[in-house]
């Protein structure tokens, strides 16, 4: 069985803690990744850039509508995800417009934060 573990946290409060403390938490993430890799549980995982970099994509009557910012309504629920490689945001948006849910729901496009590899 596969599971998706979604990480929710308060961006602003994370940003407000001292840099050394942030570094310690970052190290904890690295340890965690290493541990579950060793156990054979790890399939994939990424850190996301802050919500300020998000773009929400919808398609209405065949027209692509983009809005700045994250998905903010509660009528729809998270139903899945794709992790894709794209050369820039335009390509990522164009990939998002092909996902069926873009017509009735929406797709939030978030850049992945570059992080050093963990072995």
């Amino acid at each position, binding site marked *: 069985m596969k599971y998706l573990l979604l990480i929710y946290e308060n961006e602003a409060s994370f940003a407000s803690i001292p840099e050394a403390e942030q570094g310690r938490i970052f190290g904890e993430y690295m340890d965690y990744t290493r541990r579950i890799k060793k156990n054979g549980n790890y399939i994939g995982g990424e850190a996301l850039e802050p919500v*300020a*970099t998000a*773009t929400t994509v919808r398609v209405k009557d065949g027209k692509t509508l983009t*809005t700045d*910012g994250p998905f903010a309504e509660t009528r729809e629920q998270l139903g899945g995800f794709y992790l894709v490689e794209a050369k820039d*945001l335009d390509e990522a948006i164009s990939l998002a417009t092909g996902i069926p849910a873009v017509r009735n729901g929406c797709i939030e496009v978030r*850049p992945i934060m570059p992080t050093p590899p963990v072995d």
Partner: protein
Amino acid sequence: MDLDSVYREQRPRALATLIRILRDFDLAEDALQEAFAAALQQWPAEGTPRNPCAWLVSAARHKAIDRIRRERSFAARRHLVAWQAESVLPADEADEPFPDDMLRLIFTCCHPALALEAQVALTLKTLCGLSVEEIARAFVVAPATMAQRLVRAKAKIRTARIPYEVPGGDRLADRLEGVLRVVYLVFNEGYAATSGDALVRRDLAQEAIRLGRLLRALLPASGEVGGLLALMVLHDSRRTARVDAQGELVTLDEQDRSRWDQAQIAEGLALAEESVRRSRAGFYALQAAIAAVHGQAATAADTDWRQIAGLYALLLRAHPSPVIALNHAAAVAMCGALEQGLALIQRIEETGALSQYHLLPAARADLLRRLGRTHEAACAYERALGLVTQEPERRYLERRLREMRDAER
């Protein structure tokens, strides 16, 4: 020409090319500022270079490299990576300002993944060279808020990797629509003067027209670009006539047409004609054609309302919206069909659209007034007054309401 005006003129083009080379708005802006400081030292002694823009780009590029070498932060090293990737280009070719860079900059500033107000702010900052304080004053927000908006927009361009390019093929028309919306919004902020510093706002209208001219030079075949420029120039030709000495708004039919700028009208007419030829169902081309019909009428009574109603019908079919439907209804009424116009307004009211828009009851009130249905007109003016936010329009509606009350007595 003094150096400041040379800089003001060259800055957007130099910046557009530098952003392409350096891949970073902030780095490009800072480096260009340093290059200009160097120009202030060198040019008076050695003479202004033949190609000041290329000189500025070249100097700024070297300043940027110096800065990257000086700084040793993680972020600076990231710049360096981007720079090294780019530096394989022969330097002189990379420094040559390239008309496409201006288009790249326009399309990036007006990217739909940025909030509309961020698009506007970024456009005014980078393409028009307005300061953060000037933009903040024009939009009546605190300078710190405006600065934050710009920082956030630039961070999103960098982090989410919004491409620095002119969208290709089938995406161009769609994206151009977004660019034109930003330019027209800037114009309307300047022209409609809803609030804030009137002088700064007039500058906004001029900046929008300048952007329109730039777009037209870059995309001469687009009917919509020509249409928007025509529309702005034709509106601007009436600028001095639409407000009286007391600052009161003067409606089109009451304006002193001798104060209209005939040179602007001539330019607008030629542009509007060409634009409608190129783009028959174009949103801006059709609106320009309507403004052109007004511009050709020597007096309000001479207005060819039949042609205007026809143009609004075309516009409504191609770009249906309640505001256009309202304008169409008003034009039909002006052809003498007051009852028919009233029925069209009724239909808009029944859809529930524009229920917060003061011009809907105001238009109804004007028709009822002209039909001599004084009491109903007074009620409609009252409703419009309950919704209006702009001071000159409020005073206009109050004057009409007083007239209706006097007539009722």
